[in-house]
């Protein structure tokens, strides 16, 4: 659409966002790529520049030691496996809990629906750190859940709930639930009631209606929800750090440690590049499937 009012100033309008994207997206990505192939150095800026000017000529010496470490050191491989596993388990539970919630909300009356959606979104707007802190209160060894179980007499020793993979999964499921509910809800809302009525008239039982009509029609929402949960869950830092304790490493925590504790920027860059590949590849695949279908 070109209606002309911006034409006189188009250069000035376009320039600022262009510079912005150039700096913080293009330059940032190039820097990550270059530094991941650089050698580590003990200095204020802890890496050797990839481009060296020697005798007036430009010399490029890529150093792949960071990547070698990333793919051979069992510590890094374990962190990567942990991230993928925790993200996958969490996504599964988010789907199991989120789908029925989305369904119930889509069946509610117009007025209740608005209220329920606001109730779903409200916690999402409350600081994440503070909600995780709430979970620490509940899950820690003398926390509320253990007190409750002890009071019930189900257990006689406090369970180790926090600083485990379970507590990380609880944190991720809790944080990402709205991201699953909303897309499923909108695709459920788009289903024509006539189709369901027709199926019922033709003698389909409720379970058949759900499994053969409602669920397939809501699949696009499920796919979007899975992407919105699985992908950020891989790179999550706050949840595994505060609920997972010091022993369980994930790629997000690894990047944090390499940057702040070890000051190994080439390693941190290599981890980042790997994370970007892990995150972008599934989006590409799903995009292709959606475009074909």
């Amino acid at each position, binding site marked *: *659409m070109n*209606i002309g*009012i*911006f034409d006189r*100033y*188009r250069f000035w*309008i*376009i320039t600022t*966002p262009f510079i*912005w*994207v150039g700096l*913080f*997206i293009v*330059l*940032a990505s190039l*820097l*990550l790529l270059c530094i991941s192939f650089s050698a580590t150095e003990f200095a204020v800026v802890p890496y050797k520049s990839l481009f060296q000017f020697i005798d007036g000529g430009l010399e490029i010496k890529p150093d792949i030691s960071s990547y070698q470490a990333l793919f051979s050191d069992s510590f890094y491989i374990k962190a990567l496996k942990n991230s993928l596993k925790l993200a996958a388990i969490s996504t599964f539970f988010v789907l199991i*809990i989120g789908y*029925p*919630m989305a*369904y*119930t909300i889509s069946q509610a009356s*117009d007025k209740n629906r*608005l209220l329920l959606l*606001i*109730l*779903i979104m*409200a916690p999402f*707007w409350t*600081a*994440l750190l*503070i*909600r995780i*802190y*709430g979970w620490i*209160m*509940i899950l*820690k060894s003398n*926390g*509320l859940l253990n*007190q409750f179980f002890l009071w019930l007499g189900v257990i006689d020793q406090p369970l180790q709930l926090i600083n485990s993979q379970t507590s990380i999964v609880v944190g991720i499921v*809790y944080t990402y*639930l709205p991201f699953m509910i909303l897309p499923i809800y909108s695709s459920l*809302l788009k289903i*024509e009631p006539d189709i369901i009525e027709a199926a019922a008239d033709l003698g389909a039982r*409720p379970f058949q209606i759900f499994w053969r009509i409602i669920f397939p029609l809501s699949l696009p929402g499920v796919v979007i929800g899975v992407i919105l949960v699985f*992908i950020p869950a891989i*790179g999550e*830092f706050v949840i595994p750090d*505060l609920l997972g304790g010091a022993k369980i490493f994930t790629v997000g925590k690894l*990047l*944090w440690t390499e*940057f*702040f504790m070890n000051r190994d*920027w080439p390693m941190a860059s290599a981890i*980042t590049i790997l*994370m*970007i590949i892990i*995150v972008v590849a599934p*989006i590409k695949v799903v995009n292709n499937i959606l475009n074909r279908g």
Partner: protein
Amino acid sequence: MRFSCSNIITICGFAFLYLPIITLIVFSFNSSSLITVWKEFSFTWYEELWRDEEMIAAFFTSIKVGAFSATGAVIIGTLAGVSLQRIGGFKGKSIFSMLLPIPLVVPEVVIAFAISLVFVTINRLTGFPSKLGFETVVIAHMVIGVTYVSLLTQAKLAELDPAYEEAALDLGASPMKVFFLVTLPLISPALISGWLLCFTISMDDLIISSFTAGSGVITLPMLIYSRIRFGISPVINALATVIVVVILLITIIVLCINFTKKTNYFKKRS
């Protein structure tokens, strides 16, 4: 109810969503310093919070960072939205529109690390910014905000009838005047909700601040994080309750602005 099983899960799901928040609020009124043992009702921890100067300073730093970065993000994000929606066929437009949403896709640690690398490199080349601090945190917080605002403005501009702008132009208004007196007021709901969105994201951000703050600045989430790691204290409960109330108010404002006109979203297609 045909799928009553789903209703039970829904009730449990809501309980799950609100359990930690309710726990926090209830125990903020607990007089015991043992955080999970209820003693008696008191405002002790609110008084403590009121006297905690480090916390209050961090709070105002966060407010400042949030306000500056949200304003900056709205300005650049609007320019980006206008470029993509109202200016046709310039060089690099498709690449530009592909690159712009990237900050929403990649994990926050990745964005934070990449931005800190950009600052270090620019500092090496030009000597500016001389050190990591308030300014770098503000600029870094704008990165995600610009993307959000540009998406909101694009959506708003797309549904805006260009006839308004054309009419003003035909009646002799200069393009500048058309933009500030016609376009901007018409897309202002998107800008206001964009500003509030950026502000809330900035107030909530730990990771990007930590990577770009250096040693000069401590934002509220950074302080909360270090306190939680140090050991949990009921002062954080009191603070949490205050934040829940404030953010709930902001949420209500955003929802009122955003959804008064979009009620279709909640109605079934008939």
